[in-house]
């Protein structure tokens, strides 16, 4: 692939045979990519459909893909899934906003003030070592199982990677960048704006991305545990009614949201950090 590309770029020394493509090359290539991407999902889907046609597995245990699809469409059309998803997204939004900003501030403070770090970092490590599932029972006793619990858990999940990545991003800035800044007599604010932010931005972005992914994960966890609405609840509800089609449709929605979060973030990332590429 690569060798081929370089050869194309350099121009092949020998006379290349004239190729007559009936379809443009890129269409052929993207078709091949699509085909091999869809190969496994289609295979699984085919086998799945086959098992339900032949009745190898009871529909109570594995409903047919057609039924799952019908349920999926029905859940969207009836407004059940959109309503639940909106509630879930709102929770993630608030949790991520709170956790992300706390993490950002925390990371910056830890990186900029050594004494703050000395006082706080050990406690922070312990705090991060205890998984969210450990905090849930404790928090439940304090704040109950209401909205506050969910937001706090989501915020915690988002805060940890943001804080760590911000902290490390700033700490890894080479010392001589700051020396240049002091030669130019930049003010503290200017240092933050012109040196720290651009240099640490990629790392901060990684943190935010992980933070949002973790927030989504935490949302599903808390909603499974204690909720009366939301996409996680929809799943629990489906299970209680032994409607596996609802469960699988919900998993599908959760996967799609997870995938979109990842896609959107990589898109924003490559756009915001485009200036970096020009340097290389």
């Amino acid at each position, binding site marked *: 692939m690569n060798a081929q590309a370089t050869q194309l770029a350099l121009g092949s020394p020998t006379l290349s045979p004239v190729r007559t493509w009936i379809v443009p090359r890129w269409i052929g290539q993207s078709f091949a990519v699509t085909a091999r991407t869809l190969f*496994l999902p289609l295979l699984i889907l085919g086998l799945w459909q086959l098992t339900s046609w032949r009745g190898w597995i009871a529909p109570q245990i594995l409903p047919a893909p057609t039924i799952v699809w019908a349920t999926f469409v029905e859940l969207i059309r009836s407004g059940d899934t959109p309503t639940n998803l909106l509630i879930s997204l709102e929770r993630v939004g608030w949790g991520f906003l709170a956790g992300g900003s706390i993490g950002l501030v925390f990371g910056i403070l830890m990186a900029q003030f050594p004494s703050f770090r000395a006082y706080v970092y050990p406690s922070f490590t312990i705090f991060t070592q205890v998984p969210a599932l450990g905090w849930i*029972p404790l928090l439940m006793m*304090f704040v109950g199982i209401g909205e506050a619990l969910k937001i706090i858990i989501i915020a915690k999940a988002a805060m940890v990677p943001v804080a760590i990545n911000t902290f490390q991003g700033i700490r890894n800035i080479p010392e001589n960048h700051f020396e240049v800044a002091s030669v130019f007599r930049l003010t503290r604010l200017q240092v933050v704006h012109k040196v720290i932010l651009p240099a640490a931005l990629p790392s901060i972005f990684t943190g935010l991305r992980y933070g949002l992914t973790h927030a989504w994960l935490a949302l599903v966890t808390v909603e499974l545990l204690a909720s009366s609405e939301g996409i996680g609840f929809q*799943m629990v509800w489906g*299970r209680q009614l032994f409607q596996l089609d609802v469960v699988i449709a919900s998993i599908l929605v959760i996967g799609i949201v997870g995938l979109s979060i990842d896609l959107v973030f990589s898109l924003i990332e490559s756009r915001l950090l485009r200036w970096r590429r020009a340097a290389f």
Partner: protein
Amino acid sequence: MSISRPIPIPSTPLIRRAAAFQAALRRPDYRGLYLPAALVVLWSLATYFGWVDTRILVSPLETLKTAWHLLISKMLWVSLGYSLARDASGFLAGSIIGLLLGTLLGTSRLADRLISPTFHAFKQIAVFAWIPLIAVWFGLGEPAKIAFIALVVFPPVLLNTFDGIRSVSRDYIEVARAFEFSTLQQSLRVILPAALPQIFTGLRLGLIYAWLATIGAEYFLKAAPGVGNILIDGREKFLMDQVITGVAVVAAVGYVFHYLTARLEKRLLSWRTRTDVP
């Protein structure tokens, strides 16, 4: 040959600063203890003066007592044993799947192209979302818990095995070809050592995830003896001291895994540090 004499260190401001820094590193830093200590003091005061409902928030002393009782009781250790056994079986199953699939995807371009896109989409599904499905397929017993742990463990192992194998330098393979290594020799002498650090990272991550998954499985897949059960039980009976002890045990086990694997990694891969200094 002259006898090497210690070189006198000149005293410049920079060197003095470096020496001071080194001394500071050697001196234990107690500042990190202030915050937890303050919290405990606040906690004691709050329970002592009754600022909070002491039926919910018991005093630190009471918590320590409960913790001590749990630590000398058989119940805690039996639960821990069950949890660790579950953790180990799930980790074993998940890491074997991860290693095999990772090797397959790492060595075969075709498999990579066919399977990787699906795997990356699959990975985006929040793991806990599988719980209801697993519960229906495997029941609520031990197989379901182990299946869930394996499901959590295999992606990081797979990804790191894949990356490890893919990052083996082409030069190494060329050398191996020049020496006419057999496929087995090439795998054992070239690919495995080169990919091992990354594979180890994956296994390490897998082990840490496995512990979280164990607690999660015990949490969601209903009662069975285990550390997760201590937490659930404590919460249902509003025994804050028991919950805190349980959380501390969970965190301690996680920390021990973290520490032991870091040590093991250092020891197993110590031969590496000679060649590439970070």
